[in-house]
Every structure is written in structure tokens, then in C-alpha cells.
């Protein structure tokens, strides 16, 4: 973790007999684990693709190219394009404030950032209905000025931003904490300004963690269902995001079409996991290099 420390030789798990189980126990536990993970994680993935292509590629493509489906994709991309940059900027600012300085109330701040995680998505949506809905706190004022928030794009964006506030900050804080402040302090003592330190010192060190935070935030922004469901109003072709479109199709017994749109979001999830894999590989590599150069 600390590249400046003299690193001990990498500790390999000794597989000495007294530190591991009998081979048949090991085999049994591995098999049981693989069985459970296939059942819990892999089966749902395979099912999406099986159901989506059950009636042939043509039906699949028709479902994806349907105007309502395309409108849903467009809306989902728009919402993510607004929510993700906002929360990335926030995540960077919050992580800088929390990891570079010592101040009172840090734990409280970290807890506050986590708050949207603790609240049910449906309640997150409800919050904005109670504020901006027709009967909401600001409802009459908004109606008088002809502004629509609920059952329109602003409401969907607000709910999505709320839900995804913690993602980038949560990925960055542990990474920046582990890196420590020495490099930044060295740069500052040599007279570098704040932006220069951030761009030249901090950003190169945290880029992989930042990338994973952004992509995880993006996956959640595109996939959010409960909160968006409350504020969207389910107007086809207008306020339907991809997850809501999936729900409508499913409830209309258009299973193939529903799974076809789902398959796009599964692809996004798999891509997210792949990026995570690359990020962890890069971090391991960086740690190994740091250890050698010390």
C-alpha cells in the first residue's frame, strides 16, 4: 500500500498441510461454491440471453429497434450523461476534502455521503414527488411558472443524481487514503499550485480507481429502477428509461422484447465488471512496481 516503505517479500499462502484442509474437503467446498455461484449469479445472466434470443435474432433486433425502445435508450443515455459528470465532480471534491485534510466531523461527513445508499430507492423518488409534485412543497409555484419536474426529465435526473451521489466518492476515498499525502505535500513545498498538484500528482495516481467509480456510477445511473419509477410517470416514448421500458414490456407479456432490452443492460453490467477487473490488475501491477523500486 505504501510504496515508500521497504516492502517485505510477497507473502504466499503456504499450503502446508497444517494450514489447509484435507483434499476432499477442499474439493467439496470448491464444488459447493461453484454450484451456488452458478445458481445465484450465472443462471440469471444466461436466462436473459436465452429468453431474448429464444424466438430468433430477427425478433430480438425488432424489439431493440422499436421506436419506444430507442426512445428509452436515448433517455437513459441523456440522464446518465447529466448525472455521472455531476457526481464525478462531487466525488473528486469530497475525496480531496476528506483525505487531504484533518478536521472535526469527518466521520459525520462520510456518513452523510453514504445516506442515499441507506434509503430505499422508492423513498428517494418519493422525496422528490413530495417536493416538486403537483401537491408538493414547490408544486404550486412550479405549476404557476409552467415548469414540469415530476413526470418529466428534471425529476428523473434529480432522482438519479440523488441515488448515485456516493459512488465516485466511495471508490476514491479508500484509494486516496492508502496513497497518503507525501507526494502532494512534496509538490506543494516545491511551490506547485493546487490545480497543478491535482493534475500532475494526484490524478495519475488515482486514475484507475476514478475510472471504476465513474463506470460503477454510470451502471447504477442507467439501471436505476425504483426511484425513477416513482418520478417518471411511465409515459411511453417520453419518460420511459430502459429499466422502466423493460417493466412495461414484461407486464404486457412481451417477454422476448423485455429480455431483449434487458440484454443491453446486462452487457453494460458485464462491461462494468470487466473494467473493474482491469482496474484491479493495474493496481496490483502498480503496487508490485512500487514495492520493487523502494
Amino acid at each position, binding site marked *: 500500500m505504501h510504496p515508500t516503505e521497504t516492502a517485505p517479500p510477497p507473502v504466499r499462502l503456504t499450503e502446508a498441510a497444517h494450514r489447509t484442509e484435507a483434499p476432499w474437503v477442499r474439493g467439496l467446498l470448491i464444488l459447493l*461454491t461453484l454450484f451456488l455461484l452458478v445458481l445465484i449469479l450465472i443462471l440469471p*445472466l444466461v436466462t436473459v440471453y436465452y429468453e431474448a434470443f429464444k424466438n430468433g435474432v430477427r425478433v430480438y433486433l425488432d424489439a431493440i429497434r422499436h421506436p419506444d425502445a430507442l426512445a428509452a435508450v436515448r433517455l437513459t443515455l441523456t440522464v446518465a450523461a447529466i448525472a455521472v459528470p455531476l457526481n464525478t465532480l462531487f466525488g473528486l471534491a469530497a475525496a480531496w476534502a476528506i483525505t487531504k485534510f484533518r478536521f472535526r466531523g469527518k466521520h459525520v461527513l*462520510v456518513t452523510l455521503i453514504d445516506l442515499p445508499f*441507506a434509503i430505499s430507492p*422508492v423513498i428517494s423518488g*418519493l422525496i422528490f414527488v413530495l417536493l416538486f409534485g403537483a401537491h408538493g412543497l414547490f408544486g404550486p409555484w412550479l405549476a404557476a411558472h409552467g415548469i414540469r419536474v415530476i413526470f418529466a426529465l428534471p425529476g428523473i435526473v434529480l432522482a438519479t443524481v440523488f441515488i448515485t451521489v456516493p459512488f465516485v466518492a466511495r471508490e476514491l476515498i479508500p484509494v486516496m487514503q492508502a496513497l497518503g499525502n507525501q507526494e502532494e505535500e512534496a509538490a506543494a513545498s516545491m511551490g506547485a499550485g493546487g490545480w497543478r498538484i491535482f493534475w500532475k500528482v494526484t490524478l495519475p495516481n488515482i486514475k484507475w480507481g476514478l475510472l471504476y467509480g465513474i463506470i460503477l456510477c454510470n451502471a447504477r445511473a442507467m439501471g436505476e429502477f425504483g426511484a425513477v419509477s416513482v418520478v417518471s410517470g411511465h409515459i411511453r416514448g417520453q419518460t420511459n428509461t430502459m429499466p422502466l421500458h423493460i417493466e412495461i414490456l414484461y407486464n404486457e407479456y412481451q417477454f422476448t422484447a423485455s429480455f431483449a432490452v434487458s440484454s443491453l*443492460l446486462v452487457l453494460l453490467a458485464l462491461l462494468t465488471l470487466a473494467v473493474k477487473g482491469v482496474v484491479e490488475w493495474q493496481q496490483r501491477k502498480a503496487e508490485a512496481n512500487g514495492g520493487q523500486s523502494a
Partner: protein
Amino acid sequence: MAGRWKDDSILPGFGLSMGYTLLYLSLIVLFPLAGVLLRSLELSWREFWEIVTSPRVVAAYRVSIGSALFAAMANVCIGLLVAWVLVRYRFFGKRFVDGLIDLPFALPTAVAGISLTTIYAKTGIVGGILDSLGIKAAFSQLGIVIALVFIGLPFVVRTVQPVLQELDPEVEEAAASLGAGRWRIFSRVIFPELVPALLTGFALAFARGIGEYGSVVFISGNMPMKTEIAPLLIMIRLEQYDYAGATAIALVMMLLSFVMLLLINLLQWKFSRRFQV
């Protein structure tokens, strides 16, 4: 520069980053939450009590909390097994399996919901087998638990894994040299070390489970009094324009969420070095 609540630092940008953090957090999270609390004051105590103790609401709380408890307990067992196998053993495809654990974090809940429903319905692969055994999976409370097990699994695995990785091998070696068998070493030496992480994982999975909506609504069948979860009841009240009802049900859930968040943070501050600065 800043007052006595902050230590001096050579690094710049405290005012800007902290100011932006607090402003953004206030606008997006704190003011909206405060607004809801303000609105809930419009409810009298009696109205509030009548809503949250009505039979259908109580039944929904019971379904949500009960299912989340069962699922979190199942997750502790499965999560411990998975974390153990991933940390201690080597096998083909381990990296791949390890990466896949986070799938429930990345997969949209609605997709998980319709997929699990298809699998566990009578006509599905697993649902068919269970049905021939006389067990109804989808459209029963078992279905809700299944969905929550899927959603909660990574929480337990990812909190137990790092603790298991950092266990000092010497303690185990000492126990072995004193003649303790593997099971005895696990139950007396390793397991106690894992309890805080297991508790944290349990709390995280439970907290997520009581609020979960997308993966559950498809598989639960949504029968009032039986398989109707609290978040769905909020949704139904909203669709009926019963804002007072929705707010009251939500307030109780928010209170529960805040208690869980507090508990989880206490557990983490106590047992993890993550935020030790």
C-alpha cells in the same frame, strides 16, 4: 485560514473542495430530506399512528423485514463459504469467479427481477424442480428471499474477504503446533476473527434488503397482506394520490434505515482501519 476544527495543512484547496462538497450534498441530499421531514409535520401524531399500524401496512413491514432477515442470514452462510474458498484455495477460473461476485452491484435490479422470476416460476428451470417437490418459489415469500439473496451476496463476500486475507498465519500455525485440528482451529481461532466482518456484511445486506424494490416486485406476486413489500405499498399509495399514507410508511422505513446506517458505521469504525486517518 480555517478555524480550530481543522488542523493546518500545506496542501491547498480545502475551502473550495469542502465548500463544494457541502453545497452539493445540501442541495441534492440534505435539503430534500429536510423538506420531506417538514412535510411529514403536516400529519398529526394520531393520523400517523393510524396509518403505520393499519393491518396492511404492518403486514408489509413484516414481509420486508422478515424476508430481509432470512436473506441476510443465508448471505452470511453463503458469503462466508465463497470468501473462504476464494481466499484460501486455488482453482481454475478463480479470477473470473471473483470478478463475477460484484454482478449484483452492476446489474440493474429490474433485469435481475424478471430473470429470477423466469427461473423460479413453475415453468422455469429451478421453479419446475421446486414445484415437483411441492415448493412454490416465485410469487411467494420464498421468491422475495431468493431475490434478496442475489442482491445481498456481494456485501458479505466483500466485507469478509479482506479480513480473511489479512489474518496472521502464525496464529493458525501456533494452534496447529499445539495439536488443534482444522475444524477446531477454524471454530476457535479463525471464526472469532471474522465475526465483526460477518456482522457488518449481515447489516449491509439486511439494510439493502428492506428497501429493495426492483428485483423483488416481479418475483413477489404482490399479494396484499402476504407478499406485498413496504416499498411497493408506498408506490401504491402514491398512485392513489395518498401522499400522507406514502409519507407515513416511508418515515418508519427511513428511521429504520438511519438506525441501520448508524449501526453499520459504528461496526466499521470499531473494526476496520479504513477510515483511520
